[in-house]
């Protein structure tokens, strides 16, 4: 089929560019390559190990909060899978790569992984910019790519709703996008603080922060129309000094301050805000605040609204009721001395999504499946994870429930926690965009 694209017309045009003889040889080469790619596959299950490439931040500011926990979790999961006999009998041979170095070099690396190293799958990407640049490569180069952590809600969306899914045949995101946290925050505020009048926002000045605030603002205005937005601040990412921002928030009189900040920025901001007395006057609502009470420690203020990027929390689902979470938390804590933050759960979801999809495809085709068949098996897949049951929609985007709670100091931990019994769970259908709709259109369609 692809051979038809290189028809005589384009041939003649190429001739005009580069001379007849040379182009003819170019054409022959190109068609040859295409033919090779569509040659019939061997269906028997190979003895060789599966080549799995993991790409996440191993250096730079995003490595501590996301990349390294994610990479750790990938390692634990791969070991566990190999211990139990691998995926459909094939062991996993995992190699980690650093996501640092910019989108440009990530595109080059992904190309190398797919075309030169011929890996079976790439699991990875934290930065939304990287996801946006690399998921199109899945279909362009014919490589299976599962994005595991990046949050941008537009990744799998098209220009106009309703749209047909999926956007990328071989590209997936095995976690829900940033909209769930921000919609859940708005719903939580509606439920527990319906009388709030003034809200403000402080978000990092790049796509992640802009998108997070945009979704939150839309949702809260729909749910609580009387709320007034008194200030929106856009600190540069990796800002070291938030004094100007904190003073500005204090002067605005906001009661609730929305923030989607992450990593060292959140820690820096929180500490400086404690020092300048912000928490005495306002309450933070952090869309991805889950890792930070543990990072900051006992200084982290109480009664702050925190969201868990889904239901990823080491205390939820309660370990006595959901053994999978108990085992995962225990394994992770034993290996790395910390409770797994949400990126670790996201890594679990990505690698197990691949495992379940391959096994489903193997049982369906009765042999080793092609990448396309694995993708078809992954679409609509549903399986158990430490955080509950994860479903991957037909748009190749996962859907999750959300846990929102408030920090509280307890005796058994040296940092404030969210008590599951005092938190709110928002079921997936209340916070996840339906398949085939754009998130903004979906929120706009809500009845007030």
């Amino acid at each position, binding site marked *: 089929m692809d051979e038809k694209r290189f028809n005589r017309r384009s041939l003649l045009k190429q001739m005009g560019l580069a*001379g007849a003889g040379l182009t003819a040889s170019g054409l022959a080469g190109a068609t040859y390559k295409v033919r090779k790619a569509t040659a019939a596959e061997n269906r028997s299950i190979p003895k060789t190990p599966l080549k799995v490439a993991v790409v996440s931040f191993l250096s730079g500011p995003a490595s501590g909060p996301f990349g390294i926990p994610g990479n750790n979790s990938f390692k634990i999961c791969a070991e566990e899978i190999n211990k139990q006999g691998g995926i459909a009998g094939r062991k996993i041979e995992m190699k980690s790569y650093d996501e640092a170095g910019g989108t440009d070099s990530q*595109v080059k690396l992904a190309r190398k992984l797919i075309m030169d190293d011929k890996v079976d799958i790439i699991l990875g990407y934290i930065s939304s910019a990287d996801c946006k640049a690399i998921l199109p490569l899945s279909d362009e180069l014919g490589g299976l790519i599962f994005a595991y952590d990046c949050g941008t809600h537009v990744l799998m969306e098209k220009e106009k709703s309703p749209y047909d899914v999926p956007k990328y045949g071989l590209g997936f995101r095995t976690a829900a996008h940033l909209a769930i946290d921000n919609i859940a925050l708005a719903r939580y505020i509606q439920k527990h603080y319906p009388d709030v009048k003034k809200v403000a926002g402080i978000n990092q000045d790049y796509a992640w922060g802009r998108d997070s605030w945009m979704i939150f603002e839309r949702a809260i205005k729909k749910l609580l129309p009387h709320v007034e937005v008194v200030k929106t601040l856009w600190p540069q990412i990796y800002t070291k000094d938030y004094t100007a921002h904190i003073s500005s928030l204090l002067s605005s009189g906001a009661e609730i301050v929305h923030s989607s900040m992450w990593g060292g920025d959140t820690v820096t901001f929180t500490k400086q805000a404690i020092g300048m007395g912000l928490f005495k006057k306002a309450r933070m609502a952090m869309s991805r605040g889950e890792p930070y009470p543990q990072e900051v420690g006992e200084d982290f203020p109480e009664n702050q609204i925190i969201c868990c990027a889904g239901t990823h929390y080491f205390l939820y689902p309660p370990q006595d009721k959901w053994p999978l979470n108990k085992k995962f938390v225990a394994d992770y804590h034993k290996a790395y001395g910390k409770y797994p933050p949400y990126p670790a759960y996201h890594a679990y979801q990505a690698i197990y999504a691949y495992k379940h999809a391959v096994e489903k495809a193997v049982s369906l085709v009765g042999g080793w499946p092609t990448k396309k068949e694995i993708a078809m098996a992954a679409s609509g897949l549903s399986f158990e994870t430490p955080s509950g049951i994860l479903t991957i929609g037909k748009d190749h985007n996962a859907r999750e429930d959300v846990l929102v709670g408030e920090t509280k100091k307890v005796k058994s931990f040296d940092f404030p926690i969210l008590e599951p019994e005092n938190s709110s769970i928002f079921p997936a259908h209340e916070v996840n965009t339906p398949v085939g709709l754009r998130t903004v259109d979906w929120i706009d369609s809500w009845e007030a």
Partner: protein
Amino acid sequence: MDVKSAIRSPKAFVYLAVFVLLLPLANFLSPYQVMLLEAGITLGISALGFNLLLRYTGLLSFGHGALFAVGAYTVGMMYKYFPALYSIEILIPASIIVSMIVAGIFGYICVRHTFIFFAIITMAVSMVIFTLLLKFYHFTGGSDGIHIELPTMLGTSYTGIKRFEFLSGPYYYFLICIFAVCVIVMQGIVNSPFGKTLQSIRDNEVRAEMVGIRVKRYRWYAFLVSGIFTGLGGALYSFINGHVTPELAEWIFSGEIVFMTLLGGFMIFEGPIIGAILFTYLQLYLTSWTEYWQFAMGVILILLVLLLPQGISGGVADLYRKLKKSKTREIS
């Protein structure tokens, strides 16, 4: 040098030979290698433009990354706002015009300075362009950048074709031809009276001023031409990478342009091109070979400056000269 003798010179034969060798290369290399080579060639076009300032005008710019980004973003913006005009015959002139305009303003601020002042000012202005690309989120896509679709070429649409097939097929030949044109045009420029004027300004600014050359004006022209080449390189690069981000305008990338030019050897006309291609391979293989590629890159750079100041091409030329000398000595 007039046209006739230029064609007859041995250099022209070498160029022709390289051109003829490059053309069928797409069939022998894997598509992946072709894409790498193409990235190197587009960077080479940019470095050629950069070197017009460094080698022939004596100005070291530390902000050419921004001009590269301008060329690349022009392509992205055209797709976003004028999808009907998204064909390569329009995109290339458009990016040339836009880079010329931006280089005009950029250069106007900068050419009043020389030496280290020029380097710092170009860096500052390039950071302005960087923050604008980053800040005007709704217009430029912010830090996420813009995805670059495959353009139509000579009326043929390539939608549905995989990018690597486009790149290792029709686009390769197109790029090689543009590359050849760029090299010939730049050769012409540096050998023209204009090029000689620039070199006389570089060698002695006061004397040039004395004989009636309007120094700043000429520097500004050089900046314009340089910006056009760099922007054109950026536009051509965008199709290969498929995605542009503001990082291209950051000063680190500007530094890399200086790096590749000196790696190849900036005293020789073709040096920057060799350097750009080598740099592309070096960077890729270092990043996939070791986690500490940054360290390796830094050490290579320091060693290069200390031990091989004339770059690869200069080093080879030196070696050749020495060999020749020792040979003649043997005979005598």
